């Protein structure tokens, strides 16, 4: 497959994804038709995931059709929705108004402009350094010192998770990899496919042979068996997708392993945050299945690490 042109590779990839999704949808329908009352909720969960994947594939496909600007706009909107969900659940006060205005109307667009012009030196430090320093100054001008450090830290976390981390997905397009020019879109596809399969394979393995809870304080359902089985099989899948990446089979396997580990651990951290706030879902965009951040918690932690490792090893 490696000998195909980049456009042909992208088409083959999307055709393959379409076929897999169709197969999954069929299996899901058959399972739903034949499910016992006890197996119902598992099948419903799987079918809901499959529907979400169709939406994701359609959105990413449309964005790809518009090239780099399309992908940037898509992830900008994703970041906006995620940041909105995160800040909604924070107990901010009147004194935070100007810091929040800066977060939504300055930091968020500027970060995406920086990624768009591929200014690596800035987009990698804009939020961790400049937003980190500027927003507390704005909050301090609000004059309200009640829980000041807590409020400031929470807004910074929101920006890191929703804007910084997610912006590193379209940032993959800025990587100049010798021998891999014009195919960076496929890196995004690789990341999304590996993360999504890791989520679902952990779920499936967990249902099949899950016995020992891996982090009972953080998650009532994640098991050691699910974690090992899911991460291993998803990394293997990532290895098998090496032909759309600039890595060898072993390289793709290793990258997928790192992505899946970061994704799993990131999911645990986001669960810890939700539990502290006493909530089950970040939002309600998708009926009964949470909001944007619930879909993205694994990608958030995996994207910057994948970006930096690819950059380090290949450029």
């Amino acid at each position, binding site marked *: 497959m490696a000998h195909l042109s980049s456009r042909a590779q992208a088409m083959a990839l999307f055709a393959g994804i379409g076929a897999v999704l169709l197969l999954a949808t069929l299996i899901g329908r058959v399972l739903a038709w034949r499910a016992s009352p006890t197996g119902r909720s598992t099948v419903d969960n799987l079918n809901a995931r499959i529907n979400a994947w169709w939406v994701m594939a359609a959105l990413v496909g449309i964005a790809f059709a518009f090239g780099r600007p399309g992908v940037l706009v898509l992830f900008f909107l994703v970041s906006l929705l995620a940041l909105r969900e995160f800040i909604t659940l924070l107990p901010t006060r*009147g004194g935070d108004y100007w810091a929040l205005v800066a977060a*939504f109307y300055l930091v968020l667009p500027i970060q995406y402009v920086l990624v768009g012009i591929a200014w690596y030196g800035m987009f990698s430090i804009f939020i961790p350094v400049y937003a980190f320093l500027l927003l507390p100054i704005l909050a301090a001008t609000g004059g309200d010192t009640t829980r000041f450090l807590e409020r400031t830290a929470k807004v910074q976390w929101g920006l890191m998770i929703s804007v910084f981390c997610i912006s590193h997905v379209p940032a993959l397009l800025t990587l100049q990899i010798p021998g891999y020019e014009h195919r960076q879109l496929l890196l995004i596809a690789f990341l999304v496919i590996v993360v999504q399969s890791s989520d679902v394979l952990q779920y499936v393995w967990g249902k099949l042979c899950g016995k020992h809870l891996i982090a009972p304080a953080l998650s009532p359902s994640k098991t050691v068996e699910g974690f090992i089985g899911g991460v291993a099989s998803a990394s293997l899948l990532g290895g098998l997708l090496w032909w759309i990446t600039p890595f060898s089979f072993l390289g793709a396997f290793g990258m997928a392993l790192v992505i899946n580990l970061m994704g799993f651990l990131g999911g645990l951290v986001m669960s810890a945050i939700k539990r502290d706030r006493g909530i089950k879902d970040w939002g309600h*965009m998708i009926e009964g299945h949470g909001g944007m951040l619930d879909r993205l918690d694994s990608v958030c932690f995996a994207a910057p690490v994948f970006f930096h490792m690819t950059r380090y090893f290949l450029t």
Partner: protein
Amino acid sequence: MLEPLVARSLTGFIRLLTGSRVFWSEPLAPGRRVYYGNHSSHGDFVLIWSALPPPLRAQARPVAAAEYWRHGVLRRYLIHRVFKGVLVERDAAQRTEDPVATMAAAVDAGSALILFPEGTRNPGDGVLPFKSGLYHLATRCADLELVPVWLENLSRVMPKGRLIPLPLLCTAHFGPPLRLGDGEDKHDFLERARAALLVLAPPEAV
């Protein structure tokens, strides 16, 4: 003819900004009704208005303070032509018309009113004590249904005195309707109406 377009774009804007989620305790048909809610920003009435399904929205008219909305061409255009507001004078010493009579006339003409009994935008949490207009209106109009609406988070989207709105998720909770009891006195009724509104609020908001 521009008015429906302006109205549509304002409701569309607030929906996009706040992702406005709506909860109803029971389905309602058009009728003699007043929607009353907690008041914290100018966006409150637009959110309630856009949360109503089209048949209910067509009969809904906001009750607005004449002293504020009569100044300026844009404000007059918005309140009269776009939102078809019912203007009442808040200042008792200076008023020329009885606000209750104005509101009752609108109800008798078939409109459903959107009213904020706190009387002003509340900068803090919870609900201020209700002004008595709600009670006098319920006395004047027989068999008037009162529907409490709790608006969550809107005070953070457009705080009092600020111009730039923040995109945050907001919810509107419509509660079960209540009516004035026979011989119920003003204090008891206003307390009951206020309690019916507070019960819709999530625990941290009060």
